[in-house]
């Protein structure tokens, strides 16, 4: 009798343990905060990105996000057929290198550091005035190679004057020296840039307003 009741007690403890664990796990599952969606599709064939931007997102490309501040706000990457480094990246960067507030001056500064860490010293093959989102912009085309690493790159950069600041859109394609560049990837980049819209004011635009109010 004593043995039976000991078994029942032991079983009871196990049942209670599993029930409690189940309850706790169930609680965890329901209590976990829902992750906000980074990109929400619209009926216009574009996406809203974190309620900040709207643009045409490239299909089949990986999203790159800068989690700790630094070189870019958001971007996309695609690994392409061919030997390393066959890939294309493009991004929106709200703080392009340099500090000049005018487009020509900023472009001169920007060119001194572009792809600096890659060992490639890209040359500007074309430089033209244009408009992006209806704003004054400068398009820079770069090409360069690193004969030691046997790599080459081709890039297109838009520097855009937005209020008191300059923002940028950058696309770079990497290939081995004997590889062929793929123009289609640059067309996808163009779609991204030409469809790009700001959904809310930037930190700097809000700050400008606050300063104007303060100076009243």
């Amino acid at each position, binding site marked *: 009798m004593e043995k039976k009741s000991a078994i029942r007690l032991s079983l009871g403890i196990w049942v209670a343990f599993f029930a409690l664990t189940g309850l706790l796990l169930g609680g965890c599952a329901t209590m976990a905060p829902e992750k906000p969606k980074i990109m929400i599709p619209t009926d216009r064939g574009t996406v809203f990105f974190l309620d900040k931007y709207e643009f045409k997102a490239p299909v089949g490309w990986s999203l790159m996000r800068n989690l700790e*501040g630094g070189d870019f706000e958001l971007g996309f990457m695609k690994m392409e057929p061919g030997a390393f480094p066959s890939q294309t990246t493009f991004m929106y960067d709200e*703080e392009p*290198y*340099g*500090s*000049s*507030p005018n487009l020509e001056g900023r472009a001169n*500064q920007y060119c001194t550091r572009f792809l600096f860490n890659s060992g490639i010293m890209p040359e500007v093959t074309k430089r033209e005035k244009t408009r992006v989102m209806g704003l004054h912009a400068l398009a820079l085309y770069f090409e360069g190679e690193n004969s030691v690493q046997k790599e080459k790159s081709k890039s297109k950069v838009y520097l855009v004057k937005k209020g*008191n*600041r300059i923002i940028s859109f950058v696309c770079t394609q990497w290939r081995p020296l004997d590889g062929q560049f793929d123009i289609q990837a640059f067309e996808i980049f163009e779609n991204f840039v030409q469809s790009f819209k700001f959904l809310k004011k930037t*930190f*700097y635009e809000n*700050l400008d307003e*606050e*300063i104007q109010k*303060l*100076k009243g």
Partner: protein
Amino acid sequence: MDSHNRDLYLYEALNARVLGVSMDDVITNKFFAKAFWLDFPLVSNPLAWMGKQYGAYSDKKPFLPDGSVNNFGRRTVVVDKRGIVRYIKDGSPDNNEILSLLLKLEKEFRGK
């Protein structure tokens, strides 16, 4: 450094001034400022007293046994108009955070 240079017009609008401090000599700082188009002053502080005062220089010896040099760590310090330290942060400067603080201080100063 170039991020501070980009924001100089905002620092000025908020009645703040930027000062860079390094242990390098004056000539090196001159070349550094030229290479990065810096429009704000850089202070040359080879004896490190400023770095010690603001906690950017550790108490180790100047030349360490592993061959490295005890240099200033990256530190941002905001000092208000009364000389009171209002902000300290190590690592890369967070300009949005700094500008938000300066806006707050300017509002405080103007009593708004």
